[in-house]
Structures are given as structure tokens and as C-alpha cells.
């Protein structure tokens, strides 16, 4: 390989290394079907508020609702809930039926 070619090849290989996507950890997955049957996130927030939780963020992850919150004891929790039933989903659960 010509030196110049080598230089360009190396520069490109460095720049094109796929950055490892720092994805959210999918700690559970839910068999939750189409979004139409899902309950609103606001309802889950209200439900958890009643339990004394301070909900910080709700995301969708693996078909579940993933909740970041401080629980009634003030502990940081990341918990999963089924979007149809709003029942808690244990972490590690695969295709949880709710």
C-alpha cells in the first residue's frame, strides 16, 4: 500500500469504528402488543404517586414502561411496569404477560 493510501485508510478506520451505542439497559421485556391497548403513562404516574413515589421519568423499554423514581423510602429505583395492566414486572422477566 502506498504511504498516502495507508494514511487515509487508517484515518477512516478510526473515524468509522462503530461507537458502541450506550443504550438503556433492557432489564425486562413485556408482551404488550399494540400501543392501542396501553394505559396512559399519566395513570401510572398517578398510581405511583399514591404509593408515595416521586416519579422522575417514564420511558418505553422492551415493550414495558420503565420508571425512574424515588420510592416512598426515598430510595432511587428503576422499575418496570406492564403498559396494559400497570402491574410491576420483575427485572429479568422475558415477554411478561402482565
Amino acid at each position: 500500500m502506498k504511504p498516502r493510501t495507508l494514511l487515509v485508510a487508517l484515518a477512516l478506520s478510526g473515524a468509522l469504528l462503530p461507537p458502541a451505542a450506550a443504550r438503556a439497559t433492557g432489564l425486562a421485556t413485556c408482551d404488550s402488543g399494540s400501543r392501542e391497548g396501553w394505559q396512559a403513562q399519566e395513570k401510572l404516574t398517578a398510581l405511583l404517586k399514591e404509593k408515595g413515589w416521586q416519579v422522575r421519568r417514564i420511558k418505553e423499554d422492551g415493550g414495558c414502561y420503565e420508571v425512574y423514581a424515588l420510592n416512598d423510602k426515598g430510595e432511587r429505583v428503576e422499575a418496570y411496569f406492564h403498559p396494559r395492566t400497570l402491574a410491576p414486572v420483575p427485572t429479568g422477566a422475558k415477554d411478561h404477560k402482565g
Partner: protein
Amino acid sequence: MSAEARVWDPLLRIAHWTLVASILATWITAELKLDAAKRAHEWAGYTALAVIALRLAWGRIGPRYARFSQFVRSPAQTLSYARAVIAFAEPRYLGHNPLGGWMVMALLSMVAAAGLSGWLSVTDRFWGVAWVQELHEALANALFLLVGLHTAGVVFTSLRHRENLVRAMLTGRKPAPRPGDID
């Protein structure tokens, strides 16, 4: 064959490979979909931050080639070195070359920023705050891009000057200075 030059001191080398291991560990533990991996991810991040703190101090009080003042060159010098690289006429540096020196600073800053944002994201105050989580992910991705460029730079420079820079970071030794080298 003349004697080799001792360039990288033991503490610097230990710091370098501990940083490599801890960053690798943060990546693996972030990809694993396991509850237990979260604690490991946090500790790998704290280890990386501790290495950065040590390296920053070492850059001021450490031996010659560990010092920032030895290898952080002015923008003009760095640009002129970059031009020499493109023209295939760059001199060999016994310590970090100007581009390598700035890569060191970029890597140290990015590890610090990624580590601190990760730490913030597990405090009560910022727990579950979207922008903190997104910032941490973006900084981590930028760090992995820099690591890729750093590795490419090491391979390129090794080939150009016929020296094994990975081995040098393991043994601390480099081939003795040749005529035209910059010490």
C-alpha cells in the same frame, strides 16, 4: 543496536492500562442486560475517574515524559506537525508527538466528562433526569470515537517510524533516538 530509551514510567503505564480496562468494563457492563452489571458499571466508572485524577496530578509532578508541559504543544506547532504528517515528512518524537499529546488531553477530558455525568445520573438530585442520562450516553459515544482515533493514530505512527508503540506502553522503552528525532 544502541540501548533503548526509557520513556514511560511504571505509574504512567499502570494508569494507562487500568484506564483501558475500566473503560472496556464500562462498555461491557452497559451492554449487558443484567441488574448486577449496573453496580459493576458504576465502579468501573469511578475507577476511570480515579485514574484521571491521578494522571492529572502526574502530569504536573511526574517524570519528564509524563508531564503535560513536555508534550502539550502550541496550536501552531501542532498544525505544522499535522501538515508534515500529510506530506509524509513528520519527525519522530520520543515522547508524545503533538497530535498524540492533544489526543491524550482530549481522552482525559472526555473520560472525566463521561464519568462525572454518569456519577450525576445516580445522585438523588439527578436520578432519572432525561438530559443527564442523554448527556452521559452522548459523552460515552464520543469517548469511544476518540478511543478508535487514538488506536488508529498509534498504529499509524508505529508503522511510520517502525516502532511498536503498544509494546512501548507495556515495557516503557522505545528504540533509542535516531538522527532527526525530537526529544
